[in-house]
């Protein structure tokens, strides 16, 4: 097992890499970061942990992730076409659990979107469940807890 500093560096690097892929719309590479059983979750209720039993803003298994990416990439979605750029800042990375099979980490993220010339901001806590593999860390679960998850959001045509 690695020292905490090594692990923190590895996890921080991974989270930064994922953020960079998403901001640059490298969605196919992003898909390859996932395990087959992985879940991408954006809850509506920040106190809820039983995500399957609750309505979420998004709860994507591998199929839904693939379809979400296809929708953003195939040029058929008018909102996806008109999304300008996103820039996300990630920091405050902390390891919550450092097991041999799974690493759980949490960080702060602020995503800024330029939409029709207006800046929209999404602050969030993001929880990562990462699986160490021979090819490095893989995403087993990513939960994006938007600060205003239960408020009235603008529509979203990108991936948090």
């Amino acid at each position: 097992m690695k020292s905490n500093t090594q692990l923190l560096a590895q996890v921080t690097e991974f989270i930064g890499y994922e953020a960079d892929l998403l901001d640059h719309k490298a969605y196919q590479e992003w898909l390859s970061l996932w395990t087959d059983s992985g879940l991408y979750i954006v809850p509506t209720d920040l106190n809820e942990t039983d995500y399957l039993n609750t309505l979420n803003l998004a709860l994507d298994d591998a199929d839904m992730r693939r379809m979400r990416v296809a929708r953003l990439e195939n040029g058929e979605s008018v909102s996806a076409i008109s999304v300008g750029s996103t820039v996300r800042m990630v920091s405050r990375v902390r390891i919550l659990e450092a097991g041999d099979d799974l690493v759980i980490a949490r960080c702060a993220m602020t995503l800024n979107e330029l939409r029709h010339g207006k800046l929209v901001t999404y602050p969030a806590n993001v929880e990562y469940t990462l699986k160490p593999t021979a090819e490095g860390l893989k995403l087993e679960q990513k939960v994006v807890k938007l600060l205003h998850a239960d408020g009235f959001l603008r529509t979203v045509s990108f991936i948090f």
Partner: protein
Amino acid sequence: MSQLIDMKNIGLQAADMVDVEKGRVKKELYSNPEIFEEELDLVFNNTWVFVGHESEVPEAGSFKTAYIGRQPVILSRDRKMNLHVLQNRCRHRGATVCEARKGKTKAFTCPYHGWGYGLDGSLRALPKPEEYDGVFDKSEMPLESLRAESYQGMVFATFNNDIEPLEDFLGGAKKWIDLFMKQGGGYPVKVLGEHRFNFPGNWKIQLENTTDAYHFPIVHKSFVSSLDEATADIFDFLDGEGFVEDLGNGHSVMVMIPQLVDLEADLDQPIPERFSALAQALRDEGKSENEVKKLVRAAHGTGFNLNLFPNVSCSMAFFRVLRPVSVGETEIQHVALGGDGAPDAFNHKRMRLHEHFQGPMGFGTPDDGEAWERVQKGSMAGTDGWILVNRGMSKLRTSEDGNPQGAVCSETGMRGAYQQYKKMMAAAEEK
């Protein structure tokens, strides 16, 4: 006095902007803030407005907050299980007494000076009451209560005490609400959760959209592409046998998928591929083949959108609730529905289907939102101009219920809604 005359003129002017004969409305109806203020008064404060479903306040002490136009209200259930819709405003100096979205409580206590109200709105207690001796009696100061009535669990409230009973107002829509409520799969329909989003545009743009099949294959192309072939075929309904029917009082129904109008009929249909996992999960739970078929069919949701003027739609599998915030901003809730006591597998599937299309991150809503935002922006071009809602106007027939009916992609429902709007705005004259 002069202000009164002006206000009256604005209502009448707005009514004149609806050209029923030609099926068109002035674009100014989307962007004039004075008209918006009049709409709050003449439409939202003057008719039955949907505030929630009974399953959202299931037990004694349950409550949820809602809005009628700009006015905050509370829907509560008292200890005797009676429902109340109360103004969310303390009778002392006017603070809201409840800020939670929903919950369970014994009382609503005002945070400012501590007046405490019961679930029925009655003022129960207040600190240092002796200073009110000879001023007023507690019984005179309940939270103000609105007239509220329900149909099939849908609760509506109104500030207009002279309005017809809810069931008369719903009229021809009742039959469709009955059909809509069959999607619990043999269990009572229950709210499972909701999505909330807003868009920078006028509320009537959303009102129109729920009865607009014409946009579906264009705006939702990316959603349809994400479906398997059989399901995509179901959503290819513009050339089908569907229709839009004006049900009166501003209500309308748009039937997109006629084979999914009655979810309790045709139970011998084979189970579609995308529901095979659900069917297996239900069988594994020991459900009979009949019950499996009934639940699977209900899981689809209905094949129609029922638009109820002015703020709610029973839209295939969910409630769409709109709230006008300002002339150029509207808040929308997409309320997910399932069966109360239904198998988990069924309710889970319903939630996953809801997440797929609805809400701010669904595969459908963002594209709708983009189109609506463009409508609002475009409405600023030019000094004058019309919005056309005349599609299919020359090909109307009479439905079996005696209503005007047009093709599925006609704008029959929008014209019905604008006719009711015109009538309500013109009532400014009588004020």
